[in-house]
């Protein structure tokens, strides 16, 4: 005999209150409901006792679940950072990159020399800087009303740092400090900006690849 709707809701509510991330909530509640399915419970206390027993036996207790989700969140962020850096390296190794670099770098350099205080250019740069966060927005909206997602958090750690670095550079460039910069410093800034553009593009690619299963699941 399957668990009743109320019994399933009781288990889900309990798990929802104790875990931090959506992924853990879904996985642990599915495990508990599947493990308890077929058993008969006449009172809520009986159900609670059986549920806590499974948490103890299969997960090693609540502290173990909480520590496991923290570790997973950290491991995933570290792993995706490695993937991002690896993709960046592989991108930099491609020969066509150097041709593209020369063209874009020249445009950026010229742009910084002549149009560094041009509002439209700066707005365009700024829009590019926020691209990873904007691209992630639909996935965030899909999580609306749910718990935080471990995957979203891992991508946040990578994307938001880049957006922050990119935006800070733009703010400096558009300020009085930027106007007083020498040509060499602008040359360095052009390089850093270009590097950040590449990083942002690759992060968008990473988000697209990693969040694809979530998008498919929500359909």
């Amino acid at each position, binding site marked *: 005999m*399957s668990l009743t709707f109320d019994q*399933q809701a009781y288990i*889900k509510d309990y798990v929802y209150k104790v875990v931090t991330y959506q*992924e853990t909530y*879904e*996985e642990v*509640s*599915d*495990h508990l*409901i*599947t*493990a308890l399915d077929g058993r008969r419970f006449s009172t809520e206390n009986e159900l609670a006792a059986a549920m806590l027993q499974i948490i103890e*036996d*299969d*997960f*090693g*207790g609540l502290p*173990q*679940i909480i520590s*496991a989700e923290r*570790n*997973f969140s950290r*491991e*995933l962020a*570290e*792993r995706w950072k490695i*993937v991002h850096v690896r993709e960046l390296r592989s991108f930099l190794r491609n020969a066509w990159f150097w041709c593209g670099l020369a063209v874009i770098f020249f445009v950026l350099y010229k742009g910084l020399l002549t149009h560094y205080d041009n509002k439209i250019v700066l707005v365009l740069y700024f829009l590019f800087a926020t691209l990873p966060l904007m691209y992630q927005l639909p996935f965030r909206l899909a999580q609306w009303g749910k718990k935080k997602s471990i995957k979203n958090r891992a991508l946040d750690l990578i994307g938001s740092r880049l957006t922050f670095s990119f935006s800070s550079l733009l703010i400096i460039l558009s300020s009085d400090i930027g106007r007083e910069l020498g040509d060499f410093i602008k040359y360095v800034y052009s390089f850093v900006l270009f590097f950040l553009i590449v990083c942002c593009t690759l992060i968008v690619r990473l988000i697209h690849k990693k969040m694809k*299963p*979530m998008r*498919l*699941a929500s359909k």
Partner: protein
Amino acid sequence: MYVNKLYICRMSSAKLLKGTLQTIILKLLEDKDRMYGYEITQKVKELSDGEFKLTEGALYPTLHKLEADGLLETSTEMVDGRVRKYYSLSTDGKAEVQHKMSDAALFIEKLQQVLNLKPSIG
């Protein structure tokens, strides 16, 4: 003597199992395209005639580690009104199964040699 050895083996099987858990999971997923967490625990129990029980929260941390390392891919599906997370081997995971299996075979062979050697010394 034999009974004592068997008892010790059973007592420490959980610890021994922890060291080979990645290999077990990867092998199970090689045999079956995709599995969810609870299904894996039941399959291990069934294949070991109830001798091996995945406890102490060892399964999910290992699954998450393999996922973070890019060896497993996940997909979700709605089952009876709740989300179920399925694990399957990634391309890297498929290659890693072979390495893990040969490592495990070598380890068992060497362990056998060492364990067989001890009684003959005594």
